[in-house]
């Protein structure tokens, strides 16, 4: 009955109410959808279409751009570097994050440590890039990394202190074929042999250097002083030790007989050296080349060979905290009983880690790894900033190459679009995994 008598009266309001509900829903959802349609959906379609046209966009090129990607050496470098990034960075980060997450639980200042390591996540790639340009500076007097490397190197091999030193001409010292300097004639024990060098800038004479002096040699010894044969202000005699001339400490001196080094000494603060108890014979005194070798200059971090590892290092600095905190969250939800029981049974920390912690954490580790893969794939700013201009070609990855090809002088928007589409396709599997996981964790 009611349905018969009220078709107009009830359906009208109901339809009106439905229309009203839809209008409200549209008002809520349309602003976002319009923006997405115009600035995301349309560009994707455009890019896919554009990738089938040539550089100028006038001629249909089919799959040529996609074939070109694997022919063009620069793009191939980008693909190779992207592969390195995607394998190395997430692996190292997950490993490092795991180790730190496990260890940090054992100290009381865990929170402070986590904050410190997470902080770089707040920093822009640009700022991080500048930070690491400073750190990777090649001159060991300016770049902290090379300063450390050179410090360690010199601690083990000994620094050569006088790279620019040389003897005066015709003062009895001759340069050997290996860069050493030796006396021209041989002398028997009992003589004093002073060796004068020049070419040492005042700033490179060590502060501990004292005025050069030497004592008379005894019958079975050879002695003398290596001195800076230069009197400031002039007036010195070449080849002799003058009052104002200083000794050169820290030099290695060798006594050589018949081509064999029979004794070695190091000069003292006043430049003096002494070979005691030498058998009879005649000796030449030699200053080996190591004294004059150019100093070790460290590693060329941002050179073509190491630039990608160096930038990955900067990336580790930014993302390790992320991996550690995410893995730490997984760690704190592990069943403590299992860990404690294993410890009670006498398992070592390493066994607990290897046999219990890691297998139980596997799902979290996968999430961290996949998330990092997505982010690594899109890394752009860091490479753009850290790699110096001439090396940019060696450091390029898909994201930077896409930029260079499209806007940075290449001006081939067909190839650029194809690279963009490739990037999109590569991200899809990882993203599907992540979104599924996220929805599961939400429900």
């Amino acid at each position: 009955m009611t349905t018969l008598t009220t078709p107009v009266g009830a359906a009208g309001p109901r339809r009106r109410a439905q229309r009203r509900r839809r209008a409200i829903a549209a008002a809520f959802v349309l602003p976002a959808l319009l923006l997405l349609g115009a600035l995301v959906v349309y560009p994707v379609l455009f890019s896919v279409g554009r990738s089938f046209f040539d550089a100028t966009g006038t001629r249909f090129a089919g799959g040529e751009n996609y074939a070109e990607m694997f022919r063009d050496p620069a793009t191939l470098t980008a693909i190779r570097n992207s592969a390195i990034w995607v394998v190395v960075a997430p692996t190292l980060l997950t490993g490092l994050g795991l180790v730190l997450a496990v260890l940090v639980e054992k100290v009381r200042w865990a929170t402070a440590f986590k904050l410190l390591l997470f902080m770089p996540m707040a920093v822009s790639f640009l700022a991080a890039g500048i930070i690491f340009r400073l750190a990777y500076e090649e001159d060991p007097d300016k770049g902290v990394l090379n300063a450390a490397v050179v410090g360690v190197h010199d601690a083990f091999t000994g620094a050569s202190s006088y790279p620019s030193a040389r003897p005066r001409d015709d003062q009895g010292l001759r340069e050997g074929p290996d860069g050493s300097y030796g006396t021209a004639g041989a002398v028997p024990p009992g003589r004093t042999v002073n060796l004068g060098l020049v070419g040492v800038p005042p700033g490179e004479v060590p502060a501990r250097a004292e005025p050069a002096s030497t004592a008379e040699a005894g019958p079975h010894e050879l002695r003398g002083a290596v001195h800076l044969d230069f009197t400031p202000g002039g007036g010195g005699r070449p080849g002799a030790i003058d009052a104002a001339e200083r000794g050169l400490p820290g030099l290695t001196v060798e006594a050589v007989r018949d081509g064999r080094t029979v004794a070695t000494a190091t000069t003292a603060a006043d430049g003096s050296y002494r070979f005691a108890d030498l058998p009879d014979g005649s000796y030449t005194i030699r200053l080996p080349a190591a004294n004059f070798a150019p100093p070790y200059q460290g590693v060329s971090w941002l050179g073509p060979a190491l630039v990608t590892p160096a930038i990955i290092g900067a990336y580790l600095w930014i993302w390790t905290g992320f991996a550690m905190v995410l893995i730490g969250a997984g760690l704190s939800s592990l069943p403590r009983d299992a860990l404690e029981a294993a410890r009670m049974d006498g398992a070592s920390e390493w066994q607990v880690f290897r046999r219990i912690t890691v297998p139980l954490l596997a799902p979290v580790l996968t999430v961290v790894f996949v998330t990092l893969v997505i982010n690594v794939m899109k890394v752009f700013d860091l490479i753009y900033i850290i790699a110096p201009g001439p090396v940019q070609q060696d450091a390029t990855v898909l994201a930077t190459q896409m930029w260079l090809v499209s806007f940075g002088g290449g001006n081939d928007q067909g190839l650029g679009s194809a690279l963009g589409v490739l990037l999109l396709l590569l991200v899809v599997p990882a993203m599907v995994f992540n979104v599924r996981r996220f929805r599961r964790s939400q429900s």
Partner: protein
Amino acid sequence: MSATVTAPPPSQPSAPPPPVRPAPARRPGGRLRRLLGHGVVQAFLAVVGLVWITPVAGLLLSSLRSANDNAASGWWTALAEPGRLSFDNYTALLGNAGITRAFWNTVLISVPTTVLVVVLAALAGYAFAWLEFPGRDWIFLAVVALLVVPVQVGLLPVAKLFGQLGLFGTIPGVVLFHVAYGLPFAIFLLRNYFADIPREMLEAARMDGGGEWRIFTRLVLPVGRPALASLAIFQFLWVWNDMLVALLFADSSSQPLTVELQSQVRQFGSNIDVLAPGAFLSLIVPVVVFFAFQRHFVQGVMAGSVK
């Protein structure tokens, strides 16, 4: 991860063992080894911490040294003579019209973007979670699918589009681009959060005769505050730190700090007295946000890493 067992606090080494259990058969010397191991762990973590803080310390000290000092020696030499440090570089930087304008451009880009993304995504997220309209779930799925689109794919087509609309090289252009590419994740996050609001709460509000707008502002937004805060912080950070988008879409009058500074990186070496304080200026805002809102910050970054 969903099954969060409330974990007991990390076992303190000094805590006495539970008295109930009989003393376990430990290998002799186990206690000593454990103590020794503890010291090694502390030392190792201290070294790692030092490695982490050194690059930032380097930036900070470099930014406080004169151009000549920076050209002559490494920043660590300043530790020996801290008297030579000064704020002169910062004074000069703040007097540099290009830098100050770039700083304000950064603010003018990141704040409106953040507000717009949060507002638009909250509206859409609520609609996808609780309003009925045809094709709702399919459209939501399509929005989530847009998460995969890297910014790079949008650069060229949107640049052409903005060129026609006169938005190219303007701050609104940069903002619109950021909003569009921030929305998929933001909608995804908020819809999932709003969907967890108990149905009874919403039904009760509807019974009371509240319109959708009223329910949205009085119920959904307050309940969703943690998610909104995390999203806002994440989005702000993302845009504040962006360089790529602004590099293309901003011109010299609308470029943010990151773009202004990167143009100087090409002559790296001679201009550390500008680059170092500039980089510090650019990173201090996010770092302050980080320390002020640690919890939301970490949550936002964690959730946002899906992107």
